[in-house]
C-alpha cells in the first residue's frame, strides 16, 4: 500500500492503490480503485469469472473463495486488504481435464441444476471438510470439547452460508459425504 491512496476523496473521484495477490499460484500485481471487492478484482480485472456475484452482500455464498486457507465471502472484502494473500478460486481447485475430487463428486451426484451457486458451493465444501478435520466446532456439535464428526447435520449447518435456489442441497450433501469418506 503506497501513498497513492492518500489523495482527497468526496468529489467521489476514484482513489487508486496497488496490491499484489497470489491467485491460484500465480503472482498478480494490480492497480485498483480502493472500492474494488476481492470478487470484482478476480472477475473484472483478472477475468476469473468462475466465482459468481449473487447478492453482493454476503448472504448467498456464490462468491466464496479460499483465502489463506479459509473460505470467505469475496464480495464483502476489499482486494487492497489482501496484500500478499494466497487466493484459491474455483479455477484453481481444478480444471475440466483435471477435476478436484469435490468437483467430480458434484458431477456424479448432480449437486447442481443451473450451476450459478456451484463454484461457491464447491469452494465452501472443500473448506468445510478441512474445518471439521481441524476440529472447529459448529452450532450442531453436541460436545464442544470433542472432535466434530462428518455427519449430514454437520454438513448442512456448516453449508448454511451457501444458498442454492434450485434446491440441490441433498445432492450436495451426498457429494461432500462421498469426498469425506474417500479421504478418511
Amino acid at each position, binding site marked *: 500500500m503506497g501513498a497513492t491512496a492518500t489523495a482527497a476523496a468526496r468529489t467521489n473521484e476514484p482513489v487508486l492503490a496497488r496490491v499484489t495477490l497470489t491467485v491460484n499460484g500465480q503472482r498478480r500485481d494490480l492497480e485498483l480503485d480502493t472500492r474494488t471487492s476481492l470478487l470484482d478484482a478476480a472477475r473484472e480485472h483478472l477475468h476469473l469469472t468462475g466465482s459468481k456475484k449473487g447478492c453482493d*452482500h454476503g448472504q448467498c455464498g456464490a462468491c466464496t473463495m479460499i483465502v489463506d486457507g479459509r473460505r470467505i465471502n469475496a464480495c*464483502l472484502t476489499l482486494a487492497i486488504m489482501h496484500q500478499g494473500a494466497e487466493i484459491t478460486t474455483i479455477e484453481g481447485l481444478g480444471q475440466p481435464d483435471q477435476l478436484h475430487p469435490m468437483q467430480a463428486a458434484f458431477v456424479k451426484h448432480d449437486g447442481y441444476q443451473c450451476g450459478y451457486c456451484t463454484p461457491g458451493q464447491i469452494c465452501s465444501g472443500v473448506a468445510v471438510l478441512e474445518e471439521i478435520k481441524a476440529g472447529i466446532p459448529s*452450532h450442531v456439535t453436541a460436545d464442544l470439547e470433542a472432535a466434530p464428526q462428518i455427519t449430514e447435520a454437520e454438513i448442512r449447518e456448516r453449508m448454511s452460508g451457501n444458498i442454492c435456489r434450485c434446491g440441490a442441497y441433498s445432492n450436495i450433501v451426498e457429494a461432500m459425504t462421498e469426498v469425506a469418506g474417500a479421504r478418511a
Partner: protein
Amino acid sequence: MKSFTYERPSTPAEAAAAVGRTPEAKFIAGGTNLLDLMKLQIETPRHLVDVNGLGLDAVEPTDEGGLRIGALVRNTDLAAHPRVRKDYGVLARALLAGASGQLRNKATTAGNLLQRTRCPYFYDTAQACNKRQPGSGCSALDGVSRQLAVIGGSETCIATHPGDMAVAMRVLDATVETVDGQGATRNIPIAEFHRLPGDDPSRDTNLKPGELITAVTLPKPVAGTHIYRKVRDRASYAYALVSVAAILGKDGSGHVAFGGVAPKPWRVEAAEADLPKGAKAVTDHVFADAKPTHENAYKLKLAERTLGAALNQARA
C-alpha cells in the same frame, strides 16, 4: 459506494490517531458489516484505517485466571479456542449460532461488538430512521416491528443490537479495553459499552471518536452449565428473535442475559435471585418495563419459554 482513501498503520495508537485526525474516517477489520453498509451508502466514510496488521490477534490467559481476547481474533478462532470451549461454553455457543462459516472466518471480536442493527428501516434509505439520519424520524414505531426491541427503546428508536457474541459476553461480565489517539487506555465494562437510544439513536456505543478496541477480557470462569439458546426464523444463518445466554446450576441458580429484545444485551442482575423459582418469575422482573408493539409482544412469552428451556437443559 462512495470513494475513500485508505491506510494501514502498524500500531494501535497510530490507528486511533489516524481516525482521530481524519474527517469521516473509520476503522475496518473484517469488513463484513461495514462494506455491506458502504455498498448501500448507509455508511460513507472518506477514509478507511485498516487495523488488520496491528497484531491484536492473540488469546492469552490473564493473571486473574481469565482470558484476554485480542480485538482481531476471528469469530471462528475464538469459538474453536480450547479454553473458550472448556471454560466459556456460552461464548463458543453464541459465536457458533451467529452468521455463516464464511462470515465467522472474517468477522472479528471487536467488529462483532460494533455491528450495527438490522432494523429494516435502518437498511432502507427511503425510510425515516433516526439512527441512520438523526432527526428524520422512526418508521419502525408504527411499521413492521416483529424483529425489533421490546425494552430499552425510546420514542425515537426501537432497533435491536443484532449480535449473539455480546449477549454471552454480558453474562460473562466481560471488559472492553480501548486505546485513543493520545495512547491513553481505558477499560469499559460490557454493561456500559452499548448505549440505549434515548434521544440520540445514532450512537450505538459509548466509544469516543477515534477510540479503538484493543481487547476483550473475561474474568475467571464461572461454574455451571453454559447455555446459549437462540430462537430464529431458520435453523441456521438468521438473526435472533430471542436468545438466552445463561450459566446455570442444577438448582437453576446462576446468571442470564437476553438477546434480540433490546438495543443492547439485556441483563437485570437483580432478577437472577429468582432463577430457582422458574422462568416466569425471572422474565416478569427482567421485562417489567417492556413496551412491546402489537407485532413484537410475542417476544415476552418467547423469552420466558426460552429461559424455561434453558433451565430444563441445566437440570437434565
